[in-house]
């Protein structure tokens, strides 16, 4: 009772301190509004203004029609080059694609000789190269089929493959970008805010002050954990409601309440992590450097940016211990696929366990380092 009372009042103090810290406020607003908006809208289409060069040795009606098929926004207007130029241009990175139309292409096609086009792809530009090459194949095939329609009977494939994307039928990248950005903002801010709250006390010498009062380290730590988690929850709710669903019009399938329940568990773990990191660092700059080394791996390897299953097994295994991994899984399940608690309970359980361990570790370390802080 006494303890809860202290935690509450210390927590209120944390909130008041935060209100007077303009840098942190700007960071919160930036992370939950501009950053999400730009991340969602700035994500370019997979294929946008891709640079392509065409070596046209055929100079036929068909080859001209093919050249005319490449135009913005998918492709830049093709550069017409010679075979000799092709390698140098690709080496210099001027073109991602170089399409070679051999001489006699149209003639051979009409004669039924099955001529061969050559498409060179700069595979160091992976995503563009991979998607672009299938677009080019489709464009060229379509043009050739159109051209041939007058000459040959249509052959419909006997077996048709009907592809549908679930949960995001248009594969709109902004849906993904927006929600994932909210998730990484939650992780980043919860660590930064709690860590900064502790370091601020340490730099101002107020920790010492607290310790001579009838409050325990547990109460001090809990007050920071709960106050900062509350701030992040409120900000992320605002962001999800007004920025993601409102401004960006991203549909959310599942239960937002369930998502925030998961976020609360996640925050329990990350705020504890913030305290832990802050006990390792002596000053704000040191904390910043540590953050850089911790946050980036957490975010990049959590599965929020690239699929987990394409990471090495060892990495997948180690990342099981990170709260982000489970939070990303449950967020994707709830927000995109509309999953319920019956589906995501294992993640909830993992988060609770990780949070409990991190909180205990952080508290032990906090107690131990208090002597050096004072």
């Amino acid at each position, binding site marked *: 009772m*006494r303890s809860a009372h202290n935690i509450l*009042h*210390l927590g209120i*103090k944390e909130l*008041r301190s935060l209100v007077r810290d303009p840098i942190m406020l700007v960071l919160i607003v930036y992370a939950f509004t501009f950053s999400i908006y730009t991340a969602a809208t700035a994500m370019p289409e997979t294929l946008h203004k891709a*640079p392509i060069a065409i070596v046209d040795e055929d100079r036929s009606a068909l080859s001209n029609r093919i050249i005319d098929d490449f135009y913005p926004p998918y492709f*830049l207007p093709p550069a017409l080059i010679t075979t000799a130029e092709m390698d*140098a241009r*690709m080496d*210099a990175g001027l073109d991602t694609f170089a399409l070679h139309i051999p001489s006699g292409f149209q003639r051979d096609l009409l004669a039924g000789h099955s*001529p*061969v086009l*050559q*498409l060179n*792809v*700069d*595979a*160091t530009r*992976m*995503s*563009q190269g991979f998607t672009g090459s299938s677009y080019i194949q489709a464009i060229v*095939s379509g043009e*050739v089929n159109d051209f*041939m329609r007058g000459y040959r009977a249509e052959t419909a494939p*006997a077996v*048709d*493959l009907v*592809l549908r994307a*679930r*949960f*995001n039928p248009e594969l709109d*990248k902004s849906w993904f970008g927006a929600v994932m950005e909210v998730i990484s903002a939650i992780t980043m801010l919860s660590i930064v805010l709690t860590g900064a709250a502790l370091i601020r006390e340490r730099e101002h010498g*107020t920790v*010492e*002050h*607290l310790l*001579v*009062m*009838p*409050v325990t380290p547990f109460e001090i730590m809990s007050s920071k954990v709960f106050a900062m988690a509350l701030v992040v929850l409120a900000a992320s709710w605002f962001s999800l409601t007004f920025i993601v669903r409102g401004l960006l019009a991203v549909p959310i399938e599942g239960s937002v309440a369930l998502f925030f329940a998961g976020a609360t568990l996640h925050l329990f773990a990350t705020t504890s992590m913030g305290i832990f990191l802050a006990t390792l660092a002596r000053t*704000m*700059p040191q904390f*910043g*450097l*540590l953050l*850089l*080394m911790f946050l*980036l*791996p957490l975010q990049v*390897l959590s599965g929020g940016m690239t*699929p987990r*299953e*394409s990471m090495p097994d060892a990495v997948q295994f180690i990342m099981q211990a990170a709260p982000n991994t489970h939070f990303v*899984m449950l967020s994707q*399940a709830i927000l995109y*696929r509309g*999953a319920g608690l019956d*589906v995501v309970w294992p993640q909830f359980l993992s988060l609770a366990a990780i949070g409990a361990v991190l909180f205990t570790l952080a508290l032990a370390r906090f107690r131990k380092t208090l*002597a050096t802080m*004072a």
Partner: protein
Amino acid sequence: MSEAGDVIASPAAAPVVRLSAVGLAYGKVRALDSVTLEVPAGCMVGVIGPDGVGKSSLFSLVAGARAIQTGRVEVLGGDMADAQHRRTVCPRIAYMPQGLGKNLYPTLSVFENVDFFGRLFGHGRRERERRINELLNATGLAPFADRPAGKLSGGMKQKLGLCCALIHDPDLLILDEPTTGVDPLSRRQFWELVERIRANRPGMSVLVATAYMEEAARFDWLVAMDDGRVLATGTPHDLLARTETRTLEEAFIALLPEAQREGYQPVAILPLKAGEETEVAIEARDLTMRFGSFTAVDHVSFRIRKGEIFGFLGSNGCGKTTTMKMLTGLLPASEGQAWLFGHPLDPHDIDTRRRVGYMTQSFSLYGELTVRQNLVLHARLFGIPSARIEPRVQEMAEHFGLTEMMDDLPAVLPLGERQRLSLAVAMIHGPEMLILDEPTSGVDPVARDAFWRILIDLARRDNVTIFISTHFMNEAERCDRISLMHAGQVLVSDTPAAIIEKRGARNLEEAFISHLEEAVAKNPQAPPAAGAPRLPQEQAAPAAANLAPRRQGFSWRRLFSYTRRESLELRRDPIRLTLASLGSVMLMLVLGYGISMDVEDLAFAVLDQDQTTLSRDYALNLAGSRYFIEHPPIRNHAELDQRMRAGEISLAIEIPPGFARDIARGTPVQIGAWIDGAMPMRAETVRGYVQGMHQHWLTAKAREAYGSEATAGLFSIETRFRYNPEVTSLPAMVPAVIPLLLMLIPAILSALSVVREKELGSIVNLYVTPVTRLEFLLGKQIPYIALAMINFLLLTALAVSLFGVPLKGSFLALAAAALLYVIAATAFGLLMSAFVRSQVAALFGTALLTILPAVQFSGLIDPVSTLEGVGALIGQIYPTTHFVTIARGTFSKGLGFMDLRASFVPLLIAVPVLIGLGAALLRKQER
């Protein structure tokens, strides 16, 4: 001011410093208000006044460390607003800023610190070593030459500061509060040292600020300052005569404007009532505190009676604070015992805490909470019932004179009022005992006396036990009993009068010094007393010998002195060093494995409603590839939905009933494929794969049915994935991640290196020494370039070995480009540091301005040509773009210098532009 001429029997004709109508403001706060002053040359001039009256601002203007806002400052016969004059005279001025060892480098040893300054002033090695030896011997620091400056005692730090200031034989020595917080013996030694140096260099003028009035009494000429104005000038005798007072402290109070003196009355000391011997509030027996091998407090014992004012007198770092922290339970004692109110001290005993009030050395309340909020918060935490909080806060506010500022933030209050607030907070729960750690340092005499009246009132009327520490002698004299502390030990405990009497001294200071000398004689570890220090002979030698190296213009020696110092500091900072050496390797591993666009081992399942050999064959076709892994079959649509929602499968294939039959008949059939679209990039790739596999299956079936000629289509496209035939992520990403990391980490580290100096105060060495901005920047840049190149080699080795990405092209071309690139990256960091003031801003600002352009606009994922607008513009000029081209060219495309020459040009341009901008924007003076 006008009396300057008649009070001083000065031999020199022209004043050394002449100020006319000098004003200085920090934002809205006026630090100096139209100061006009002529400082006579060749003598010891003291500036007196409490903290925050403008002494330090005045000194920084005279030293040329701060830019002049209004008025005219003339030093050594020239205008300090003129950069040319500043350059000429800066080797003749030595400036020691306020704060113990503010312009020293704490991780550097004593010798390395002095050596650094010697190099800055361009002395050769032999000359330098001779001077350093002489100075260290003269100051008694020679035995501690290898000790890091940060581990010296306050007195030793100040002596070291003096060594650094004197290395270049200045004509004007500016010392800003050199003895504040230093024990009286060291203080006396310090002044003896200055006296001897002056005796050898009679022409040297010394300008000193001090808060100790006793010290000021010995100076030749004084300037009394208050609130940014000069109150009076003259010899000490003159000031006393004019105000008809006995001491300078009284004289100063008399000189204050009427309004400030209002309500002032001398502190009346009420003696402690006898006969309460039995009640002991605090008892300590053999309290000892060790930090590693260092003993901060060494077997300290004392007893404090209830209602007594007990004082701890000693220098900074003598163990006062540590002892107090042990008594409050903040630090567990290594040895010994203590009792509070008769109970053994238990740090976890919450109830004892309610009986004690503690006030820390520096102001440590919440600056973000108002006065009222601070009081209420503490009342709540001490568990005062809600109903009683409001009256109690009101009572405290009235008692401590805070009623008018209840809704102000502590930051806007004057120091004296903040101290009263701290005391009010410490008293909020009505404790029986107060532990006050140097509560009055920096407070002006009037406010200090007011504070003491409150203390005496609390002790005598409310019978509160007060345990207070101080380094002011006159405050110690007000205590009932005091302990003299030095180097962790209590030298003596008694009433002040008895201590003076026993030593046969004239006053407490002399008694203290006599005790200190005794202690030092016993303990050879402490700095030796001013026994027989050999004075620098050379000090008196003609200055001509030293003028030679004071060349203007660019100096490699000064540049390398910064390089040397930066490398030493970096080597001794574990966190920065770890980031610098291992940070990029660790991040490379993370990014190499994390930014993977390969889609492999995708989970899929089949809802097979046909259950024929043919339908199973279709599923096997998928399962056989390296991209897909088959999970148990799906039984119905509900299950399909549920398993996709759970994210268990990324792809579901639905084969309709009658699939085999319809194919045999030639009736069109539809196979359904559901892809998990939650991650669109992955979904796109899955779609590509599924389509490919489907085609492949159809062709294979056709071949089975009609023979090979059936497969020939109209035409075919032969796709060659060049440079990375497997189309896997690692060869594509690894060469591009190297440029990203070689930008991020070197830029952050170099940005921090300058801003750190701004924060810690050692940037003042750039302001007041002959080092130029370019020397400073390049000197600091070199260690980071070297580190970045080592990182480059590590990353390349990692790419080739662990990630198995072969380096097909010219290593030399790659290395040359890397060198240019890291020079640009570190120069970018230095450019950033010209703008920001705090390390945190440098860190986040640099991270933001490097990560975003390097990741988004430099062709790491999408080629620059596909960008639009500002992004495209940034991408074209940002160095990372060009280094990415070179890295991919050499790694994946097997190219060399000649093929990539076009990409070298932008890097060659970026280097001088960034360095030049950094040098141009860095300031040589504080504003």
